[in-house]
């Protein structure tokens, strides 16, 4: 066996080891119920902002404190705290991917990804163009705008 083959095998084994360990650190996408079921565990919570409930944000008091209620597709609600201002497109988003942990009765996010209605969807949704509240279309090339801490 040539030297180069040994190195090849070692490197490939290394790459596979790295990937296996990477797969072990992955987390899950969760609903409110399943996120609540694993307190203290880092999850991706999929829900949307419940506009019926009050939102707390006062930049004068504390620009790094946002609290609101999120509701998932099953109708379950959860209190969310985010130590940042409202992420971009927050009001517009039809879904939020909130990364964080459920602790002490609330979900504390590290980051929030807003998912906006894409133009290919609003084609089907058929908002009529004369209407002022036509949804803005977003580029699919830049899938989601992540706001990070």
């Amino acid at each position, binding site marked *: 066996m*040539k*030297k*180069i083959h040994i*190195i090849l095998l070692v*490197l*490939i084994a*290394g*790459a596979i080891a*790295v*990937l296996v360990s*990477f*797969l072990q*650190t*992955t*987390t*899950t*996408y969760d609903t409110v119920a399943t996120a609540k079921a694993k307190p203290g565990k*880092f999850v*991706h919570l999929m829900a949307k902002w419940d506009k019926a409930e009050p939102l707390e944000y*006062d*930049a*004068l008091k*504390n*620009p*790094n*404190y946002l609290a609101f209620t999120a509701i998932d597709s099953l109708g379950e609600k959860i209190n969310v705290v985010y130590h*940042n*201002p*409202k992420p*971009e*497109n927050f*009001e517009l988003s039809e879904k939020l*991917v909130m*990364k964080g942990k459920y602790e002490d009765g*609330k979900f504390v996010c*590290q980051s929030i990804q807003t998912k906006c209605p*894409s*133009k*290919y969807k609003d*084609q089907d949704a*058929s*908002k*009529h*163009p*004369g*209407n002022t*509240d*036509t949804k*803005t*279309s*977003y*580029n*699919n*090339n*830049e*899938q*989601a705008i*992540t*706001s*990070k801490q």
Partner: protein
Amino acid sequence: MTYTGEHLLPGQIGHFFVVLSLVSSLVAAFAYFKAVNSQNIQDKNSWLKLGRGAFVIDAVSVVAIFAALLHILFHHLFEYRYAYQHSSLSLEPKYILSAFWEGQEGSTLLWTFWHCVLGLIIIKREKQWEAPVMAIVSFAQFFLATMIIGIYIFDVKIGSNPFILLRDSGMFDQAPAMHIDFDVTKPIRTDYLSMIKDGNDLNPLLQNYWMVIHPPVLFLGFASTLIPFAFAMAGLWTKKFNECIRSAIPWTLFAIAFLGLGIMMGAKWAYESLNFGGYWAWDPVENASLVPWMILVSGLHTMLIYKKTGYSLRSTFLFFALSFIFVVYSTFLTKSGVLGESSVHAFADIGMNGQLFLFMIVFVWLAPFFAAKNNKQRGIIAIVTAILSLGTYFLADVIPGFPMYVILSGVITFIVLTNKLIPASQKEESASSREFWMFIGSLVFFLAAMIIIVQTSLPVFNKLFNINTAPGEDNEFKYNQIQVLVAIIIGILTAIGQYFKYKTTSRDFLIKKLAVPTLVSALIATFILVVIKINYDKEGLGFLINIWLALVANVYAVVANAAYIFTGSKVNIWKRGGSIAHLGFGLIVVGILLSSGKKEVLSLNTSGINVNFGKESKEKTGENLTLVKGVPMTMGKYQVTYMGDSAHPKKQQTYFKIDFKSKDENFTLWPNAFVNYKGNEGLMANPSSRHYWNHDVFTYVSALPDKSKNTDTSNFVSHKVNAGDTIYYSRGYMIVEKLAGKDNLPIEGFEKTDTGYSAAIKVQELNGPSYNSDLLLIKNKDRMLYQLQDTIMSQSLVLQLNDVKGNKADIGVKESSNVLDYVTLKAYKFPYINVLWAGVVIMVFGSIISMVHRINKLKVQKLS
């Protein structure tokens, strides 16, 4: 039925040319294919002529499609869906081009356009390779043309037509106002166009000059990866390995230069117009274009090894096949919507997904098709591909992972077939040879790319196997953690690689040549680590040490390659393209390590006053700071003041004037934001930055007062305190200096049993003046009789005394926001980011020099 005001001609012309380009590219692919396979010179020439003619027609058609779509956008013909969705009357003309490539159809057009340009150059210059290479280019053109054809075959939608009319696009189906008698079941009103006043506009984030030039360069890069792929396939097909490798080198350098440039222009765009405070986020879209580039770089190096020594031919073919396959994969990732976790589209779905995936299957299996021994084997592979494509359509949902097995089996078949075709070399490379270390470098780079793409493909695995995995807690770190190790290895190999000679190198020679660069880089690296310092401790000491090592290795790469440029008796810059490119690459890595390792958040809420204020903010101090108009705040070494704002004349865009002052710097930044854009509540902010040679100051608006809702809704927050306690508010703190209670008030109208309470409070604005406030409360038992509110206007603070019990007082504090104008900012300092950008420019420059040199060398060879 005619509709008032429509301009149907541009669309008809456009779609005619879409169809023509589809047909002509197929004819070209077929004719070129026959030209390669015909034995007879006369047949060959007539097929060649047909192919050439068809390809020219394809190129003309693509230009015509381009022109028609541009016409529609420039003249705001909103009867076309594309113009309606991507532009508006107020869009500045320079952004019409950005609007052109905002949509999937436009970006596909851009890609085919570059294929046409590159194809014409090949027809002109690469006579020997024209037929086989152009067969593959035309075939790829055919696939791209299907993506904009927009027709239905048995209910399966093929492509998306950019010339579709708004009224045909289904957007009016639920819009009664657009239909006769306001009834959606009735036809569309003939005067519907009079109700469409303006288009939907371009996404504000894309209204940036980098978005005008980044996509064309990136797609030129994408398009140019097809050429090394086509050369590799042509080489396998015609079995002329040496010639194909030699001719493909300049094309590979070209692809590396422009794909690299395109990717980094995207990074620059992200840095200039997105708010995540950086240029790279390991976003799937970014990774998907980086991976083909890395594989291409690996391919270039193994290609050079082959040319000099005859080793590494198999891996060269593999790398070139994979680099284009991964370009198609990246298109699939970005265009299929598979990255949006929620997307319910399966692979075998109708619409574009199936088509995009078919594109991938076909190009994956195209590789073994050309690596096959003879035409009989090719026939079998073609049939297998057809069966597998159909199989994927029906089985993707039945057998988990089926599409992936189809792809993997294609790649494995290719490896097996090339191994049969190309005999293994029996000789062993010496560990003191350049090729040995070059090969290891290529391999490490390739494996690094594979690790990135597997990490990126989590959403794809979710779809394939119906599982639920999400990225880990610190996803970016998961990439950095691995790639920093790659940077160490690659840095060292880049530094020493060129000092080795092919075949074998003597130890004395190496020591003699490497001594000075090693010493110099040790000094520079020590200087950086000791004086400039990187103390990135967020991920622990182990990672920090890796950063240091990577920095040392890449400083070494920069110095050693700079030194190598000047080795030899006569310095010929044209021969040193490789070293220049390596130097640039080293600088890129050094720039990444320095700017990310030393990135500093300026807007840290370090004043301490807010830490305990928000009910739950036990977290670390926040990274956003609120600036009240006219009140200076400290950010790092700067005094920052929000001076005022001004509105864009035509758009709902507001510019905020932010003054930065420090001892030695004085400048103003104008971050801007779209406020309540298009009637949608919310804020879309664009950053602004000040560039210095050694650092950037970068800021953007993260929150604004909502003026429409600005009735005074803030409430008194009650604080139960003892005398001497401190209460914090947003701009300072207050101390309860004295509490007193008194019966028998000497005030008229009150009885003896009424008790008066008073509180003396000193309000201290942080870094500002202090105010005295005296609060008074008069009670009878528990009944409140009189309460004096004290307002401190300059602090927009309202105070009142709610209750006093013994030593404890309840003080109400209200911060009224309606009198205040403020912005909330996030600001960063990026040190040494220009090292990164300079590295990119140098690397691209080096690759181009190298390309020109190789082209000239080929010319000389041809002449002799």
